[in-house]
């Protein structure tokens, strides 16, 4: 057992898989010599050499194109798109190529690759470098979308993503890189499509992802201590595939559900989850499902404004408190 930062967990997860399988290669901008702009991949070049840990040109299309070619010809690439916002630059691969190739070749060609991104805000990077893009990715049949919130999940879910036979978008949260958590020694392999109940509760279910997970946990603690409201907090972890059993089961127990989403409100991931809940669990609901999200605005760079935009602990507490008291 060791205490690792989230960024150290990224390097550990990649190293675990590269050591296990020589077909796993890693490519991206400044990931090798510089150890990543977020310093999440330090030491990998030294450990695995320049043939397997490759600094690329500054071209997201080239990175994903190369990764796709490598995946089609037998390797298991991990490609880094530094800021998740840059997915838009290479969206054709994400939208049209990766998720459809297995289907269009009748299963003859699969694309076993992982695209890692630094996702989300809170770091004052401005409107083009702070977005939460999980909903950009979860709309494509054939694409899996994972977003860990803790170091141990980074290692386990990254391993699961690398071992998955299909393309996985792996959304690390920029503002979580410095957070710490216990990570057991030895190989860690998690499963995609399994949510985690981080805090059991009976009054309401809070569904959160990425950086919203620690905020939801903190909000739940405040709701309990100051308002006597006992919330169940679920780290959704994997949007596609989605652990509907865990989520619907929790809603059946609590009767109320709140999503805490960093992505802009319009068509955020919670909209899809709430629609499933309304469809499947309507008669388990004792009040409207409520989404706590960033408003539908470009994220400001100014710290005070960014803090106002992204759901805060106090906003989560206040929304749930108001909704649960008559």
């Amino acid at each position, binding site marked *: 057992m060791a205490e690792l930062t989230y960024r150290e967990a990224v390097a550990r997860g990649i190293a675990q898989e590269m050591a296990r399988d020589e077909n796993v290669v890693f490519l991206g901008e400044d990931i090798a010599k510089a150890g990543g702009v977020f310093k999440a991949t330090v030491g990998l070049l030294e450990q695995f050499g320049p043939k397997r840990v490759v600094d690329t040109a500054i071209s997201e299309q080239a990175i994903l194109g190369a990764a796709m070619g490598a995946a089609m010809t037998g390797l298991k690439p991990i490609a880094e798109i530094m800021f998740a916002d840059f997915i838009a630059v290479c969206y054709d691969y994400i939208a049209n190529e990766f998720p459809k190739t297995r289907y269009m070749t009748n299963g003859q060609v699969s694309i076993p690759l992982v695209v890692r991104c630094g996702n989300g805000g809170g770091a004052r990077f401005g409107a083009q470098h702070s977005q939460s893009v999980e909903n950009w990715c979860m709309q494509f049949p054939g694409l899996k979308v994972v977003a860990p919130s803790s170091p141990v999940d980074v290692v386990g879910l990254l391993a699961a993503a690398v071992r998955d036979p299909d393309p996985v978008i792996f959304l690390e949260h920029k503002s979580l890189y410095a957070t710490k958590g216990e990570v057991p020694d030895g190989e860690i392999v998690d499963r995609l499509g399994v949510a985690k109940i981080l805090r059991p509760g009976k009054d309401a279910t809070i569904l959160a992802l990425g950086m919203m997970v620690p905020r939801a946990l903190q909000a739940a603690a405040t709701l309990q201590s100051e308002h006597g409201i006992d919330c169940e907090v679920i780290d959704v972890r994997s949007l596609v595939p989605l652990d509907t059993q865990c989520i619907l089961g929790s809603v059946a127990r609590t009767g109320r559900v709140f999503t805490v989403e960093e992505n802009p409100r319009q068509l955020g991931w919670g909209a899809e989850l709430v629609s499933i809940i309304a469809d499947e669990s309507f008669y*388990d609901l004792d009040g409207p499902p409520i989404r706590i999200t960033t408003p539908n605005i470009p994220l400001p760079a100014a710290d005070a404004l960014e803090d106002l935009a992204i759901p805060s602990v106090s906003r989560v507490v206040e929304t749930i408190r108001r909704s649960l008291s008559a």
Partner: protein
Amino acid sequence: MNVLMPQLGETVAEGTITKWYKAVGDSVAAGDLLFDIETDKTSMEVPAVAAGVLREIRAQNGQTVAVGAIVAIVAESGDAPPGPLEKDASGTRPQLADSPARDSAEPAVSGGTSRAIDPYHGLRTPEKNFGKARLPGGARTTPLARRLALESGIELATVQGSGPRGRVVAADVRRASLSGGSANATMTSSEASPDQIKALYTSTPYRELKLDNMRKTIARRLSESKQQVPHFYLNADFDVEALIALRKEINKGGTNRVSVNDLLVKAYALAMQEVPEANVVWAGDRLLQLERSDIGVAVAVPGGLVTPIVRNADTRSLLNLANELAGLIARARERKLLASEYTGGSATVSNLGMYGVRSFQAIVNPPQATILAVGAAERRPIEAKDGTLRATTMLSVSLSVDHRAVDGATAGKLLAAFRTIVENPLRILL
């Protein structure tokens, strides 16, 4: 292999052969040009995709054929000598212009399952419905409150809402259900209060047992029935010698066993079909005459009883009915029945024969109009036609009837039809 008229664009339905490069009998290599075609949009050369010998040309120069139709047949090297090769593709291959007709001619997907599978995760939408959000009095309710109310037999209109804008929420229903207060009719104003009752037993040791929801529901529903439903009762004794023998015969060696009760449920369902005017339920200002015989069966469970309903008991095979009933009873004992599985129904059968009860009168289970009470089969002496005494197996039944819905003569006809089937039990197997 068949050479087909290719599809030269989404909206093109046919093409015209303008030139043949090969003649019948020529050998063809993959990639050799076979013919030229022209459509209203374009023209192109069509090459062979496999090597062989051109056996037959079906569309000559200048001929216009539908997309997908066979233009020529190339016998591949190693193919069997020419014969009727494959069916004309125009019969097997959809043509664009025909596609709507083709769709309608196709059989429905997996017969009867009209439910669309959610492509996202294969989720199912529940079919249950627990009523409207706004009650007739104007009060609002949450979906969960409605479900809990129906499941615990709480009348929502009597529950005070504590939610936002007075909405009745789950906690209100749970509270009403626990307190047994305004929400249930176990105690009416004319009844003595619990304290008055307890006062009568001060010198007697006792334990107080709390009423659970099932007990409250039974108390409320049966009080209502006995107070509001004008009951009358018909009693009869049936000779079930043949029925018992039939059951023995059915169960011989087989692994699927049927009970006397299964036979009686099926027989009663059939009898209700013969006397449709008895297959009615009381709906306040009207009767509903039911088309199917959905028979409830009273099942004792720890702490009370429930009456799961065998739907379509008249049309099920006996074995199917027995299995369905066994499943319902098992789940009833685990208290796992859905509300939809014990509500509605045409009539109820209640059997206390296993306790040696000879006969009893049951209380009608509203809105159903009849309930059949079945006693124990027992050997009794009867007078035979020639005046001698003989022993046979007899069964006493009692039919309780809601006189608002069914009159004596109709109920008599129903009982007679039931008797005929029970005493000629092969009809149960039809």
